[in-house]
């Protein structure tokens, strides 16, 4: 089986986000491999280390040049090779899934790992949309995964708890916290990764167009009251807070 693992390079959670024109401008912003995608890379490696029949692990990024760094991180963690479809075009997740599905078919992937919710576009759609395009089942929000022969099993979160599941490969799995603890690339592996293939593919070979237009973006900061109460006298502080919640904010009866 070949595993395709998707990666994006996103702003660090603590980084300041700025808007330029009508869109988010990442110039000068610290960017890192999306933590959710890192779980996917790590899981692919662990499946192989755990004895699953894994022929090859391929990392795929679609997007601007900065995604190269996410691919290098994945290579240094241990994936075998990387593909970068470099494009500055903006895609929505459903349009992007057409490109991912095409790569998966060309590469003969049997398992696709995707982050459960990407930290840049806050979308959960890529995994499911890719699965539908390929006619594969999907398991989302997975926090435990096993592959035996052609059978995938594990556990994932649902609306009101969690489920254990079984499905046949090929399939799409979206990852989340708890699935594993991603490893840090070691220096020897970083050196080795430099020799691994990072193929650049022409976006024109993957015809897809975003069906969703960006109209604008803004950082909305809501004015907060910031009414601070000193807690030195607990009884007085408690009484004051309850009074404010009842009579000023009117959120308690």
């Amino acid at each position, binding site marked *: 089986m070949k595993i395709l693992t998707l990666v994006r390079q996103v702003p660090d959670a603590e980084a300041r986000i700025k808007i330029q024109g009508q869109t988010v401008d990442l110039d000068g912003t610290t960017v890192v491999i999306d933590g959710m995608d890192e779980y996917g890379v790590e899981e692919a490696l662990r499946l192989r280390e755990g004895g699953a029949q894994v022929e090859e692990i391929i990392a795929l990024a679609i997007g601007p040049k900065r995604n190269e760094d996410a691919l290098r991180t994945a290579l240094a963690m241990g994936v075998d090779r990387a593909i970068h479809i470099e494009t500055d075009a903006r895609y929505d997740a459903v349009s992007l899934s057409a490109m991912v599905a095409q790569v998966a078919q060309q590469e003969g992937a049997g398992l696709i790992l995707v982050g459960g919710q990407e930290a840049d576009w806050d979308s959960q*759609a890529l995994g499911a949309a890719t699965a539908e395009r390929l006619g594969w089942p999907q398991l989302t929000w997975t926090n435990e995964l096993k592959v035996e022969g052609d059978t995938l099993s594990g556990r994932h979160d649902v609306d009101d708890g969690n489920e254990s599941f079984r499905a046949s490969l090929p399939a799409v799995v979206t990852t989340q916290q708890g699935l594993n603890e991603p490893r840090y690339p070691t220096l020897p592996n970083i050196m080795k990764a430099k020799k691994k293939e990072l193929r650049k593919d022409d976006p024109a070979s993957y015809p897809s167009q975003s069906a969703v237009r960006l109209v604008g*973006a803004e*950082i909305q900061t809501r004015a907060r009251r910031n009414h601070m109460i000193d*807690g030195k006298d607990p009884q007085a502080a408690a009484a004051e807070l309850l009074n404010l919640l009842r009579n000023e904010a009117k959120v*308690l009866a």
Partner: protein
Amino acid sequence: MILIVAEHSGGSLAKSTLEMVTAARASGREGPVTLLVLGQGIGAVAKEAAAVADQVLVADLPALATYNAELWAAAAAQIAQEGEANTVIIGGSRSGREFAPRVAVKLGAPYLEDAISLSSEGAALRAQRYTYLARVTETVEAEGPVVVVSVKPGSFQAAAPAAQAGEEYDVELELPAPRVEITGRSVEKSSRVALTEADVIVTGGRGVGSPENFAAYVEGFADAIGAGVGATRAVVDAGWRPYAEQVGQTGKTVQPGAYIALGVSGAVQHLSGMGKSKNIIAINKDAEAPIFKVADYGIVGDLNQIVPALIEAAKK
């Protein structure tokens, strides 16, 4: 028509469904607001649905007894096609955001995910949504014979019953065989109001100190004021609380009338799940804790002393 896939559980309609009805009416899209109710033994749910929608389509089938992404997607896409829906609205729950993209692909339709507002701009359907861990609000739009939308829970008012109940119709579906086999389920039941439906939430962070303190302070205070209970990831990772209570990027998104954070630092990943709450109240001993930057009311102090005083005062 505007097709809404109803969310329901335990034999009654979820508040999110009433919110979707409001979203449908706000969208400026044409046609009757139609609720599709999928499940088994859902007569009562269909009745509730009829009270708020122009019409209700009911698929009461054993195969639909539990939610399944592929079946739900097939059902929604089939009905959207047969009814020539111009808009398909799906809940922004975990399951909704899981099957909505499949519906979009099946219909060859654009997908506006996790909308917090909806309006029509000419032929286009326009939505706002949060991005970058909810730090940015983007406005996006799409057009086409049909557009699929998921709606973020808590973003619209719940619709009130209409003057006249809508008609109910049974529908027939051609469903695929499910390919994912569910071998076990663990439902995290809580006697409290569901997090995404609660109007007041009390959340405990690591600062609460222990699972015992969590029960005494967070649950104790929540019970005293009739609130839902939330937790930070640190607390869930420590095994003090079930994952179902986690609020944040990798947990639930909530926007209650009041969000009361006890011993919570206010990390971005946590803020992304609760930062849009109408009122934020924080109790933290560290005056520099980031949670205070977003708080409407804050007490700087030791929660071991303040929360018992709060519980006592609230019970009066």
